[in-house]
């Protein structure tokens, strides 16, 4: 078709109504001319017109052909076709509802999964030209720990900045949290400590006020400054533009608000509600921020125009090589290889778990989507075939073959589009409501960015959804369209049970519908196996013994600034907090620790007095706990030998320690550890053999690390009165419901220091439950998919078998007339129907075994080829298939021989 033709046809579309009038008039003129001729030959006007019409032929038919020849049928005709299509749908409500619902399910699930993966792995933070941003890091590769990524110390960030300035503009940043308030009502909030040029590097402008200047980086500024995030400004200052210059308290210090950042920007950590400079951090959060050589600071850089990634990476590498050991707080031992790396934002954000879990989720959802499409395609094919005769009649009556074909597809297309739109809307809704937590897989340095979490639809997700809808329409309508196109008039009118699902089809000859059912069964089997494995993982992890008594325990964190309570003042502070909480009615016992059970613990090295100091690679790592005397009572850990801690084990008393049974077994196998002395190395408070603690007791094991890390329970406890950091998890055993005491406990804590907030008060049950949140999520999602897949596959099978039976009624009638028993007929249909799922189970098992290894990291104490799970999935699928086959099989046995023979 030439351009001119296309334009002509488009013009025909636009001018459709006038073209229609045109055509009518032309035909009328023809008829009148013909009638005039007949009249001249002597007929009456009426007869002449009749003769003219008769001579002309089937006007309707010819008019249709003329419209066909013209090209696009015009908008008026399109409207007519759509209305006709909708009427057809209304006549088959079950079909329409099932098609729309199934498409909505498939499209919605796929779009949701894509949005989650997109937010976790690819969505760019709201900064301009995010592709030119890079994160330089230090790497240590050792045999013991593999590749570790480390940050920089503050002095190193300044040195790095100067060194790479020609190729990259850098700024440092760290996540920090502090108690913030405006006028009372303190709240523990996340923020960022940044170098003054941070916003400049990211290219983000404030919507109000200004950002930090270069000279505002020192601790001793006259009016310390803070920059607020948009949401923080709205909640604390009600969006008042007079907020600039107002006071804002951070960790008890008053800062002046100098600027507000745009909505949706929360820094690279994607959680910041406020920003302070590194200089202010030394006063507010960590006194050693600018001087310590601990490597905890991240750096972000923007490559200058024309600079390639390799050039920037080289510059960083040269700096690292020149700095040498100054990059590290403890020089790594000789066997470890050190280096630098330059990551893109996407590299920095994908945690290990996300990289494994996201593809698995996408694969499962795609399987479900394909299943849904297969089901809909199957339904469409059946629908198309059964309306074959109707189409033939309509074409014969003057519809024009092409018009009729197009019309029969329009209805189905409308149903698919409606289902697709419904699915995408549902996905946006689910994402917006954050029903599925976007950060479920944690993250690397940069946390995941949930689409739709900020106001405004995310264009990428909507575009993806639209593409999926188009793809679905293509997949689902292709086969019916081909079938319709191939139908000729004669075939349709001749009727009979021939065609894609004729007599032979469900039996021996492989057909498209049969193949689709097999595919569905295969996908369903694989999803069932996946769901079963993950559900088993979840069940096993839940059943794992944690070793603590988890009911009636309240947990929360207190995080006063270490600048205010360095380790030499921390024990007294913690002791006062513990005493105050103990006075609250309903509190049975209180303890503190570095963390709550299963939530993660602090580690340190351990040395035993009297034994030679091991080589650096062989120094054992143990879990360290600075606890209160009541710790074991709060958590229900039993004392096995010796004694626990008492009030007598205070600062001046001899240093003592308690070890767990596993620790005793590991370090003193077969001997009694009580009386042995241990110390922990630099920076722990037990630096040298002289400051060692004597072991006085052994307690039972408890799990302090997430269960899927399978850590060994080597725990060493020491009393907090003899050494502690001030940031503590507080564990309170209560008589009643733990959360009911939160207000009273909060008052108790604030009686000691009003600027200390209770962070994340939760019950211990919740904390433990959260530690397997990911396994629960995986299991729930996969199990849901598996159930849906089972339903879809079963209904798909039912549709095909039922349709086959309907087409074969005559055959069944003949068999019955020839004396076949009902049981034999039932068996025939049933066996024919069950062949598809049987093949599907076999193929699905092969597929599941092939993909099993990919799931391995997500599984807990269950192998990817677990025979119980495989067997269970097969049984479930075959049972569902059997149910789906039973109903049509029974209907076949009831075929009346006489009626069947009389039909047709």
């Amino acid at each position: 078709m030439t351009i001119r033709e296309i334009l002509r046809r488009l013009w025909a579309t636009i001018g459709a109504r006038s073209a229609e009038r045109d055509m009518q008039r032309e035909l009328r003129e023809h008829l009148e001319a013909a009638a005039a001729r007949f009249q001249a030959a002597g007929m009456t006007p009426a007869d002449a017109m009749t003769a003219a019409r008769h001579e002309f032929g089937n006007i309707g038919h010819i008019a249709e052909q003329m419209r066909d020849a013209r090209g696009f049928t015009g908008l008026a005709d399109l409207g007519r076709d759509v209305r006709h299509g909708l009427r057809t749908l209304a006549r088959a409500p079950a079909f329409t509802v099932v098609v729309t619902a199934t498409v909505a399910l498939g499209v919605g699930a796929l779009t949701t999964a894509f949005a989650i993966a997109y937010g976790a792995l690819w969505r760019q933070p709201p900064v301009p030209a995010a592709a030119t941003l890079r994160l330089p890091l230090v790497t240590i590769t050792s045999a013991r720990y593999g590749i570790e990524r480390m940050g920089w110390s503050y002095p190193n960030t300044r040195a790095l900045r100067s060194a790479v300035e020609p190729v990259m503009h850098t700024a440092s940043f760290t996540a920090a949290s502090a108690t913030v308030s405006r006028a009372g009502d303190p709240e523990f909030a996340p923020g960022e400590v940044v170098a003054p040029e941070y916003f400049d590097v990211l290219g983000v402008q404030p919507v109000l006020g200004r950002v930090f200047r270069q000279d505002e980086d020192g601790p001793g500024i006259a009016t310390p400054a803070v920059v607020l995030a948009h949401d923080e400004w709205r909640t604390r200052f009600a969006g008042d533009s007079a907020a600039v210059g107002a006071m804002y308290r951070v960790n008890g210090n008053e800062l002046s608000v100098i600027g507000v950042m745009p909505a949706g920007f929360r820094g690279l950590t994607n959680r910041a509600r406020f920003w302070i400079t590194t200089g202010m951090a030394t006063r507010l959060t960590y006194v050693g921020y600018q001087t310590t050589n601990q490597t905890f600071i991240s750096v972000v850089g923007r490559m200058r125009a024309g600079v390639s990634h390799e050039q920037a990476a080289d510059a960083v590498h040269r700096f690292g090589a020149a700095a040498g050991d100054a990059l590290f707080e403890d020089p790594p031992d000789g066997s470890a290889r050190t280096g630098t790396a330059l990551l893109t934002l996407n590299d920095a954000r994908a945690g290990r778990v996300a990289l494994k879990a996201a593809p698995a989720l996408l694969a499962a959802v795609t399987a479900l989507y394909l299943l849904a499409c297969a089901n809909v395609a199957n339904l469409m094919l059946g629908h198309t075939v059964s309306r074959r005769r109707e189409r033939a009649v309509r074409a014969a009556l003057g519809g024009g073959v092409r018009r009729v074909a197009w019309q029969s597809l329009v209805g189905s297309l409308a149903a698919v589009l409606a289902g697709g739109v419904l699915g995408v809307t549902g996905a946006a809704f689910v994402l917006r409501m954050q029903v599925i937590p976007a950060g479920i897989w944690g993250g690397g340095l940069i946390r995941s960015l949930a689409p739709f979490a900020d106001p405004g639809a995310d264009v990428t997700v909507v575009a993806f959804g639209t593409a999926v809808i188009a793809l679905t329409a293509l997949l689902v309508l292709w086969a019916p369209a081909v079938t319709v196109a191939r139908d000729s008039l004669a075939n349709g009118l001749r009727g009979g049970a021939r065609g894609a699902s004729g007599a032979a089809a469900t039996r021996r000859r492989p057909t498209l519908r049969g193949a689709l059912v097999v595919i569905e069964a295969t996908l369903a089997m694989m999803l069932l196996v996946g769901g079963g494995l993950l559900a088993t993982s979840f069940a096993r992890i839940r059943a794992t013994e944690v070793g603590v008594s988890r009911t009636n325990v309240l947990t929360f964190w207190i995080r006063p600034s270490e600048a205010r309570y360095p380790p030499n003042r921390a024990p007294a502070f913690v002791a006062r907090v513990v005493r105050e909480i103990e006075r609250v009615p309903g509190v049975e016992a209180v303890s503190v620790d570095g963390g709550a059970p299963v939530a993660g613990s602090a580690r340190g090295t351990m040395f035993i007095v009297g034994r030679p100091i091991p080589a650096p690679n062989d120094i054992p790592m143990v879990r360290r706990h600075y606890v209160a005397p009541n710790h074991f009572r709060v958590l229900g850990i039993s004392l096995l030998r010796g004694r626990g801690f008492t009030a007598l084990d205070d600062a001046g008393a001899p240093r003592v320690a308690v070890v767990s049974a596993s620790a005793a077994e590991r370090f003193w196998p077969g001997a009694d550890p009580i009386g042995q002395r241990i110390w922990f190395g630099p920076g722990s408070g037990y630096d040298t053999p002289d400051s060692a603690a004597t072991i006085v007791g052994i307690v039972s094991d408890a799990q302090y690390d997430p269960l899927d890390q399978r850590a060994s329970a080597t725990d060493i406890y020491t009393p907090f009165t003899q050494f502690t950091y001030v940031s503590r998890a507080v564990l309170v055993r209560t008589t009643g419901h733990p959360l009911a005491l939160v207000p009273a406990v909060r008052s108790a804590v604030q009686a000691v220091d009003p600027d200390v907030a209770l962070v994340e008060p939760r019950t211990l049950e919740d904390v433990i439950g959260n530690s397997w949140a990911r396994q629960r999520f995986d299991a729930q999602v996969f199990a849901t998919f598996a159930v849906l897949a089972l339903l879809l596959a079963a209904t798909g099978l039912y549709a095909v078998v039922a349709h086959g039976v309907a087409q074969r009624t005559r055959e069944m009638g003949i068999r019955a007339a020839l004396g076949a028993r009902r049981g034999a007929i039932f068996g025939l249909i049933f066996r024919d129907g069950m062949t598809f799922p049987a093949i599907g189970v076999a193929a699905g098992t092969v597929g599941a075994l092939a993909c099993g290894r990919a799931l391995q990291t997500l599984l807990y104490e269950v192998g990817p080829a677990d025979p119980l799970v495989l067997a269970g999935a097969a049984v479930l699928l075959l049972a569902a298939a059997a149910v789906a086959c039973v109903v049509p099989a029974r209907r076949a046995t009831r075929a009346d021989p006489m009626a069947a023979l009389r039909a047709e």
Partner: protein
Amino acid sequence: MAPKTALVQGTLDLIVLQLLSGEPTNGYDLANRIRVVSRDALRVNAGSLYPALYRLEARGWITASWHTTGNNRRAKVYALTAAGRRQLAADRREWSRFASVLSIILDGRRP
């Protein structure tokens, strides 16, 4: 009555183009003209002619306009376009070539 010969769609197009190359006319008169010029050998019915006219118009080889005829009727008149003339010339050449090839095969005569 002369036997009606079955017409292939392509040849109908050629006939229409040829007959419109002389004088523009409407559908009714064109059908008559075909009958007359072929000395009653060909009778094209409305059901074939009108779709063919619409097809040719969609292709841009003929163009249509409304005229008022002698007895105050309005008639839609088709005329050949420049592109139509070119197409007609090309089709005629094709046909001669085809005819001569056919006669070689049928009669063994050299071109």
